[in-house]
């Protein structure tokens, strides 16, 4: 299972790539394996203000539908429209072409709530 070192994580299996106030959000390799083959994605509207832990996107597989939570509060500044047409990109490249959206975060201090790579590794192996 791939858990890149340069990312931060959430308990609900989202990953966050931090670039100053802009962050990229996706779901982890572990999450895509658990969800299995993804067949449909619903993304938030561009410009939407989201609150931390609020359900903002939906990922659907043949198994079930899953809520994706905002890892941080902020404004949606970009959505990955490519995965709307090709949801399998999330299964194939969860950390690259399969990202979900980019967020301009409201409060830089929120970053402290995110898990480190070690914490996330621990979370996943304890299951």
């Amino acid at each position, binding site marked *: 299972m791939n858990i890149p070192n340069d990312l931060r994580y959430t308990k609900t299996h989202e990953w966050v790539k931090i670039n100053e106030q802009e962050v990229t959000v996706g779901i982890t390799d572990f999450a895509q394996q658990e969800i299995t*083959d993804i*067949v*449909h994605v619903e993304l938030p509207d561009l410009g939407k203000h989201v609150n931390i832990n609020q359900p903002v996107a939906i990922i659907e597989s*043949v*198994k*079930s*539908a899953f*809520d994706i939570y905002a890892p941080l509060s902020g404004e949606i500044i970009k959505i990955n429209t490519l995965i709307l047409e090709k*949801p*399998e990109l999330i299964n194939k490249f969860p950390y690259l072409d399969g990202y979900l959206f980019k967020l301009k975060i409201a409060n830089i201090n929120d970053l402290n709530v995110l898990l480190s790579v070690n914490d996330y590794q621990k979370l996943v192996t304890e299951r």
Partner: protein
Amino acid sequence: MEKLLNEISTCCQPAYDISCDINIEINIPSNLQRCSSLHFPNITESDLLRHFTNLSRNNYALSTTFYPLGSCTMKHNPLISEQVARHYRFNQIHPYQDELTIQGNLEIMYKLEQDLCAISGMDYFTLQPAAGAHGELTGLLIIAKYFETIKQKRTTVIIPDSAHGTNPSSAMLAGFNVITLDSTHDGQINIDKLKQLLNENVAAIMLTVPNTLGVFEKNILTITELAHNNGTIMYYDGANLNAIVGIIKPGDLGFDIMHINLHKTFAAPHGGGGPGSGPVGVKKFLEPFLPIPRIINNKTHFVFNYEKHQSIGKIKAFFGNFPVILKSYVYIKLLGAEGLINSTKQAVLNANYMLAKLRDNIDVPGGHKCLHEFVLSLKSILKNGVKTVDVAKRLLDYGYYAPTIYFPLIVEESIMMEPTETESKQTLDKFIEIFKIIIFKEMLDESDKIKCAPHTTIVRRLDEVIAARNPVLRW
């Protein structure tokens, strides 16, 4: 696979002649006349009969096999209900008929409402909703209307993470935001978390009792009291009512509003997309908001009452799915109070019998006792790359309908079984034997056989992913 009618059609055999001698050119303008021929299949009556008989043999149904589909209550539906519903005195009636000419129908609906009140502890029922999820939506619209009337702005509904997916969908459709409540490890409501979530914004809590693990919510009285102290309405999802009919009433537990799936607990056929029925019951304070028309008994006869200014309005064409309502009425009268109670006890006994035979070697997240159904987690016994879905498909090879899998979401590799009260011990024993052969023998010795299952069905394993990503909706 059985060929389509057009594929078995040939031009050189005797078949029905459907040509007619009406001169369409006189009656229909030329721009509306069809230019190409109709391609009606040319088939003998015996071939046609065989075609449909062969197709019907491919049905998986309760009339051919055990159907332990958890959470769906696939019980036997008495055939006398079908006979009554097909009687010409019922099936020739039109909803536009004058009320005075359909007094019998109205009386049956009125009496079924009263029976459901007696069974559930609610004060009033509407029979209009066309299915369980439609009942949920109706219930939530009633709740929204209630708060609008008492001028309180409440925007959220709390739903546990073990709930049926229709609960959050219905709440969203009715205009509420949904807050998900995490369950404890044994599937119970987490009271401390519920207390944190309750505030002046919470319109309702939707609960399924017993919950989707088949376990009774032991703190239910505390939960309904907490809700009521907060001015929040308690919604009872009747999906699992089969476990408690005649034993306890949702109304007595503190629920204010509920729906019943007649096609589950009260033995009307499951629609498979066709007609179901999801009556909604309410306590007295919610009665003004029920859909119109209401049936009232004005001493001399039954009439429809449309004069209810606070009603949420009409939610279904005419008066609900009457044949389904009729079948459930027949079922209730057939069993009587004692029969309903015995059915509940037998349903719980059957589920516990199965669970007792399986629990020693398999994880049971809900504990070692259940009500009408139970959930197993196969996670710790899966071997050689086999998944729960493969086990379910393998059961088809043995002629069984597969149990529910991957629900509830809170249990990994879950498989949910509900035998219902209408199955015999012999049927349950045979199924348990086969299930154990698959998971304890084939999984070790012949795992490929499971992973490639089913082998004996009309079609082999379908590619669900391609079907979902690129659906072909026309032939």
